[in-house]
């Protein structure tokens, strides 16, 4: 047994442990999601159907939700079903949830990928730039701008953009981003502009400031002073000495912001009427569609866990101190 463990490199052990931890987190999250939505005071069927529901409908729903079974058993069935790809059916229209969620998932993913693809390089680049020029005018300008944007709530940014670009000032872009069910958002790419811009503006200041702070920490470190004293050229100091040390913290920042965006889309999609997961969640909550709420919340939670897991593993891989044992 001892031999076996020592045969695996410490790196693999570390990564496996991290993956196991992620899986455990997911399991606990699934419980939280299930019990938070399931254990409602009183009769769940009545909560779903409302006060005026008649007894037969209630009875039918109780059966469909297996409300007669003990809670633990229901959770178990639900979990097994989800793990085997059976997400259940919507209470509202009886359609398979997988089908409902798939296109919304796709739409949200498009929004997320677009936003991160544009924002991260820009915010990271400007963050590094501002750090390198800390205290000068360009840095102050960027920092103040970031602060101002960061102080605005996301719906204010969204509505502000609508006012400027889609209604009152100019009407270049569609104010709402609705697409007919079943059609791809790419059929009308213009609808993507405002939501992407809003999400980008919401996340930009956050990444920018974190990267700037991280980079300043690096630049003020003893080893950077040492690099100066070694007389290294500026480019070498920046690219060989400073940046590699900023990568690991930057990955954590990006992961946090991705996780945050997953939540942020809920509000933005609602504002723009964009048919993504967030909007789906809002609709489900309004119509008290428990199974759909559960699936979407679980998906968001899983995304969160996976992003953090990936970030931690990449961090381990790029940090020599974590990656290597003692020589």
């Amino acid at each position, binding site marked *: 047994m001892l031999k076996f463990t020592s045969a695996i490199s410490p790196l693999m052990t570390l990564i496996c442990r991290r993956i196991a931890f992620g899986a455990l987190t997911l399991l606990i999250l699934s419980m939280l999601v299930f019990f938070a939505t399931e254990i409602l005071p009183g009769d769940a069927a009545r909560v779903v159907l409302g006060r005026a529901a008649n007894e037969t409908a209630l009875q039918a729903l109780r059966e469909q939700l297996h409300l007669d079974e003990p809670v633990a058993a229901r959770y178990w069935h639900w979990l097994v079903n989800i793990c085997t790809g059976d997400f259940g059916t919507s209470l509202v229209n009886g359609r398979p949830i997988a089908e409902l969620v798939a296109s919304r998932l796709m739409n949200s993913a498009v929004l997320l990928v677009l936003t991160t693809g544009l924002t991260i390089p820009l915010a990271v680049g400007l963050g590094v730039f501002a750090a390198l020029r800390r205290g000068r005018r360009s840095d102050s300008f960027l920092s103040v701008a970031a602060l101002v944007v960061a102080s605005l709530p996301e719906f204010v940014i969204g509505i502000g953009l609508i006012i400027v670009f889609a209604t009152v000032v100019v009407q270049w872009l569609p104010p709402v981003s609705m697409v007919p069910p079943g059609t791809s958002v790419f059929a009308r790419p213009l609808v993507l502009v405002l939501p992407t811009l809003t999400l980008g503006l919401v996340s930009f200041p956050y990444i920018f400031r974190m990267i700037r702070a991280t980079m300043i920490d690096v630049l*003020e*470190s*003893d*080893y950077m*002073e*040492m*690099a*100066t*004293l*070694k*007389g*290294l*050229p*500026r480019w*070498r100091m920046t690219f*060989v*000495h400073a940046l*590699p*040390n900023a990568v690991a913290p930057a990955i954590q920042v990006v992961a946090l912001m991705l996780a945050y965006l997953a939540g942020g889309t809920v509000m933005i999609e609602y504002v723009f009427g964009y048919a993504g997961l967030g909007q789906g969640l809002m609709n489900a909550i309004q119509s008290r569609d428990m199974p759909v709420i559960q699936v979407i919340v679980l998906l968001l939670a899983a995304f969160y866990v996976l992003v953090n897991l990936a970030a931690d593993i990449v961090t381990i891989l790029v*940090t*020599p*101190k974590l990656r*290597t*044992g*003692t*020589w």
Partner: protein
Amino acid sequence: MQLIDPCDETRTVSVKNLRVETTDNLKQLVEDVSLELLPGEILGVVGESGSGKTTLGLALLGHCRRGLRIGAGTIRVGGELLSDKGPSELQRLRGRLVCYVPQDPATALNPALRIRTQLAECLDKNGSGRNISLEDLLEDVMLPSGAGFLHAFPHQLSGGQLQRVAIAMAFAARPRLIVMDEPTTGLDVSTQSHVLKTVRRLCESHRVAAVYVSHDIAVVASIANRTAVVYAGRIVEMGPTASVLFDPSHPYTRALIRAVPDIDSTATVSGLAGQAPDGGADLKRCSFVPRCALAVPACRATVPPAVPVRPGHEVRCLRAADREHIHERSRLLPEETGSRSNTLLDVRQLTASHGNAKILHDITFKIRAGECVGVVGTSGSGKTTLARSLAGLHEDARGQVIYRDSELVSGTRNRDADARRSIQYIFQSPYGSLNPRRSIGASVATALSQLTTVPAAERRARVLKAFDQVALPASAIDRFPHELSGGQRQRAAIARALIVDPDFLICDEITSALDVSVQARIMELLGELQREHGLTMLFVSHNLAVVRSIAQRVLVMQHGRIVESGLTEAVLTNPSAAVTRQLLQDAPRFSCARSAEYLEEHDVV
């Protein structure tokens, strides 16, 4: 200090009237410094922390930390006038003409880059002219030159190895001048001795001049040809090392020397009175006035000029020529308690392990009430484990520990409040005993409320009294650990231990991270507590000189065993174990001040 021809090519370094000030021009951190160095010469720069040594050292590379600038003066190294160069030209000259060895290589080497990369870029700077390989560089500093070592990252090497890598980096370009900022502070004595020898050899063989910054005069004595003593940004005394050490003319130099325990003498150390200046020279009077016992009204009227007291030995003190005030280093041996007093602690067959590894084997010894027992040994010999086991902090310990007729159980939680009060433990790192989120005062008061019955109303007064004992300013009471300097934090930790009136104090390397002057104060305090209040101590240190100045008996440890024990004097003058002899040999000492021949020539002493 004397007029130097700035174009004199025989001198590697010539600095004239250098001033480094804050950019707001409020403080002069280095003021009116002039010095010169010949090829191959080593100049030691000593002073308390905050005196401006690092600022001066960095200025020699034309570098100032954020918020500082070179305000006046010229710096010439190897024919180049550094003080006139622009940033890009300076950057070109650094690492080629002047190199730097940092205080703490663990933070100064880049954690993300391999040793190979960091060494190689020092060679690249050097151009194609020379043919030095990485292997040669590592061999120069006696490091393994295999691919494995070059492939390692800094965190995979020990402190001593890192420091040698840093030195190899500095010598790689064969510069004219190397500035070393406390390169051995924090290393154990044998590693330090290695590093010092390496530096000396390299400077000699490559004809490189060096400025060696340290707060420890004993270290400087063993390496520098000349020594400069810095106080509040000024060089107050400079001359051949032997001349400065054995015939110091400035009151500050004398105080500093008295603060350093000498391995070859039994004299106790005495701390410097008053607070070290918080940076910046006094432009109107002698900066040392507030702490000087010899001050006369004239000292408040002018800044004393540098005057020669002997050829090549200059002093900034109006009363330097006044010789009658010089008294001998006091030779006060801490009193031996002998067999008069009772055994306080009786350790029988103590063993301890970490997991499967046995750390301590069969430790048996006694401590009598009122005596101080020193524990010495190389790093890894089990000193800390022994200290922790006695303090009840090491759970995995077996054997009998009898304290005042009753057996001590292991695990502090299992001991009653009085035993916990009676035995106090001070850590090597004061962070261990101070809560980072509570003020120092609150942390110290907690000890009172948990272990004693002192009423709440009296606690503040007791805390202030304890602060006073350890020379902490009363204002520290509301500050948080991170707002204090390392020395102040350590003193707060000591205050926390002393406030409950312990009978037995376990000190684990408590002064290793401190400035000599702060160390001296703490040693003085502990000596006083021992003499006047009968405090019993176990004093762990790798520094034999420190142990000699406080402990009546000493235990020498190696590989988890006591290999030698006895009266300190007997053990140090007549060591029987090989480790003891090695430790003695590696200890830096005053007597090896290099320019011994100078003494004969000039008839000093």
